[in-house]
């Protein structure tokens, strides 16, 4: 009987080992394929409807807009060679000639008109419509000239057109696929869509008739979805994939030391912060808010929890974002924090907590879990720091959907939190995309001003900055707003994330954009190890 058992074991062992070797066969003539493991899973490849950066990553290779961000997040001409405007309300774009979509359709003013009108179409209820909904009309003046008229002057048009919402889709493909364009993306980009295996991977192929030379070196790109952090790292170590993004902070040291892998650090515009709830009585006192800011050791958070994959933020905006202004950070100073509380009329009770009129000073923090790198761990650290100086703190760690539900309270009395942790990375890389939804009075829930911050000085500056055609003036206004928000402690900065990717030493030329997008159009693979 044992003999049978052993024979079974050996036979199946051999079978398994045989299967393991089966995929080692290599064909030297095979096209070069670059594999990237990423998460979360893809939702749609329709650029007018996509919300998450996984999708945007693919769109960045397949689609192009009139203008697009470069690596630093600056506006650069792409399908438009040039543009002009007198009053920031009527804009004329001069299009590039000789560009074709992947299906052979010619790119021209009509294509631009059809694409932009599509995203503006209310009946389609496309998710990215708000990015461009201030456009009143799109006119094709001639074959290669487009005029865009806005409802009111708006300097943010260019950055918003750089958003993937501004992608130009092949009109022929739109006609053919209709609502299924998200399964069959056809753009003008350096890579064309090959297939999407749901839950597994999206495969792109180099587009041979791309209008620009010097872009697109590998023949195919595969974007694999690998949700588990440890597995992604393992796949890079075993050379099953060439690039991973994002990289779990705790694996960075290991990947740096590994001679076969390299860690890439680039710009990224997401800032993690605590948004304070101005409707809560205790939070209405600026001294208390300042005390809380001084109690938290952001330096230590960035170093010990994020392993230096972030820096201490000195504004609500990242330096990469248009309109950024360095306004400062509150130093970790528990003494100062406690004397501020004393100044505000609080006294320590026998339990070591601050108390006023028989009420203990409490702080209830809400954080999402896993939405941003180490968000809930950072939340735990924050409540720890507050406990240290005598503020009774509690943390509600919620899954993303429940978190959104909890902090979306139209009646401020239902908002049972003193602050919530949020990571904001403006998709248009423009100050307006952070400041207006977060801090303008007319953005109260269901808008994103869920700290109920209301300041006429801020409101006024934000609307002036948006509508003035003068770039210097709008820059100055945004700077003032950031100063006010910092002085008033409307938020407490926790981390300014860096863009981190890791790749095999055989790959070079990968870059990350400030928008959490890895761009592989300039990536090359060295000969000996290419698959």
């Amino acid at each position: 009987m044992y003999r049978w058992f052993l024979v079974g074991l050996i036979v199946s062992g051999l079978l398994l080992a045989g299967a393991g070797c089966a995929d080692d066969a290599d064909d030297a003539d095979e096209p070069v394929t670059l594999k990237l493991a990423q998460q979360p899973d893809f939702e749609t490849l329709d650029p007018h409807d996509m919300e998450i950066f996984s999708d945007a990553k693919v769109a960045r290779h397949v689609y192009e807009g009139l203008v697009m961000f470069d690596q630093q997040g600056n506006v650069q001409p792409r399908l438009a060679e040039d543009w002009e405007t007198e009053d920031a309300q009527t804009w004329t774009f001069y299009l590039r000639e000789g560009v074709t979509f992947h299906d052979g359709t010619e790119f021209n003013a009509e294509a631009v008109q059809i694409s932009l009108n599509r995203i503006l179409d209310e009946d389609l209820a496309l998710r990215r419509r708000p990015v461009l909904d201030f456009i009143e009309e799109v006119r094709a003046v001639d074959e290669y000239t487009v005029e865009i008229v806005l409802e009111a002057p708006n300097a943010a048009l260019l950055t918003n057109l750089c958003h993937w919402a501004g992608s130009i889709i092949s009109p022929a493909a739109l006609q053919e696929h209709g609502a299924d364009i998200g399964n069959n993306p056809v753009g003008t980009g350096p890579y064309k869509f090959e297939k999407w295996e749901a839950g597994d991977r999206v495969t792109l192929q180099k587009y041979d008739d791309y209008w620009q030379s010097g872009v697109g070196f590998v023949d195919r790109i595969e974007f694999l979805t690998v949700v588990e952090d440890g597995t992604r790292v393992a796949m890079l170590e075993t050379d099953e994939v060439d690039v991973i993004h994002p990289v779990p902070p705790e694996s960075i040291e290991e990947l740096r030391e590994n001679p076969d892998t390299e860690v890439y650090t680039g710009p990224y515009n997401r800032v993690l912060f605590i948004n304070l709830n101005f409707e809560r009585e205790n939070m209405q006192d600026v001294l208390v808010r300042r005390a809380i800011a001084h109690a938290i050791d952001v330096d230590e958070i960035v170093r010990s929890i994020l392993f230096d994959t972030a820096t201490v933020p000195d504004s609500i905006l990242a330096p990469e974002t248009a309109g950024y202004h360095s306004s400062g950070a509150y130093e970790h100073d528990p003494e100062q924090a406690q004397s501020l509380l004393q100044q505000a009329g609080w006294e320590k009770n026998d339990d070591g907590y601050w108390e006023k009129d028989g009420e203990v000073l409490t702080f209830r923090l809400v954080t999402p879990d896993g939405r941003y790198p180490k968000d809930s761990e950072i939340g735990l650290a924050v409540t720890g720091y507050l406990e240290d100086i005598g503020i009774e703190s509690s943390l509600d760690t919620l899954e993303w959907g429940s978190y959104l539900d909890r902090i979306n309270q139209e009646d401020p009395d239902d908002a049972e939190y003193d602050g919530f942790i949020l990571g904001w990375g403006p998709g248009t890389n423009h100050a307006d995309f952070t400041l207006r939804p977060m801090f303008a009075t007319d953005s109260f829930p269901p808008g994103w001003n869920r700290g109920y911050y209301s300041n006429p000085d801020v409101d006024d500056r934000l609307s002036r900055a948006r509508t003035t055609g003068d770039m210097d003036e709008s820059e100055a206004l945004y700077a003032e707003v950031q100063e006010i928000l910092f002085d008033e402690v409307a938020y407490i900065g926790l981390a300014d994330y860096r863009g981190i990717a890791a790749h095999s030493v055989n790959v070079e030329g990968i870059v990350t954009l400030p928008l959490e997008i890895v761009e592989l159009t300039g990536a090359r693979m060295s000969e000996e190890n290419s698959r």
Partner: protein
Amino acid sequence: MQLVKMTAYRLTQLLVVALAVSLAVFLLIRLIPGDPVDLLAGFDATPEQRELLTRHWGLDQPLHMQYASFLGNLLQGDMGRSLRSGRAVVDEVVPAYRNTIKLTVVSMTFATVFGILAGVVASTRPYSLMDTAVMGVAVIGASLPVFWVGLVAIVIFAVNLGWFPSAGMGTPAHYVLPALTLGLYATALIARMTRTTMIEVLSTDYVRTARGKGVSERGVVFRHAIKNAMIPVVTVIGLQFGYLLAGAVLTETVFAWPGLGRLVVSSIVSRDYPVVQVTLILVAVTYTVVNMATDLVCEFLDPRLRYD
């Protein structure tokens, strides 16, 4: 005649289960805090845009209307579209279902073969060294968390030894680690169940009679004992199959397997009502069918169980 009646009975049963599950899932997913429009709309959504999305997806309709239209469409073969991707639900669910079935079948085959073998081996000499060793391994196998086993398997067999790919699907080799990980618990369970029932059967009178009339030990075990010992084992296998089908979430996550478990989790996370509903109904129906198949096998093994 009997067959027709039984088939009709079972189909009715299946229909009732599917209907009950569809209603339960429909209501439960709506009970979880979290509005799909919040998750859909993104950070820059204006109230107008939110209203647009709500209307577009019919989420402004009263609940019974939503359920009626979901059920009506489903009966006509239209599973609707995913809120998250706008893709047809059938395009999301069917490939994932196929992948999960593949993994589950491979993994159950492994679990059945090794579980029964190990159980039989252990039972032939109860309390021997071999028995203790096999059952010890089985207890460990049943106790280890799948998630941990998966990650350790990747580190040992993919990263250090390089025998198998660590994740994804494609070649047969891609099945090895996830199938073993997923099947570990079932193997252990089947082994223990086989051992218990085999020991019981081997001590019955008819086995003693068989031995007495000079049947070889191999003949006793494989011709006489095993068939009777298999009934509870088959039941366990059936249950485990259903369990693996629905419970492969962790394994699929660790091994980046594009299956149903991951689809369910990600669509619950994004409150993608149509996908969650269809997926869970499908799981429930499969589970029911597997149980019916299990019953049929048991009836074949033991005619006394037949409804006559």
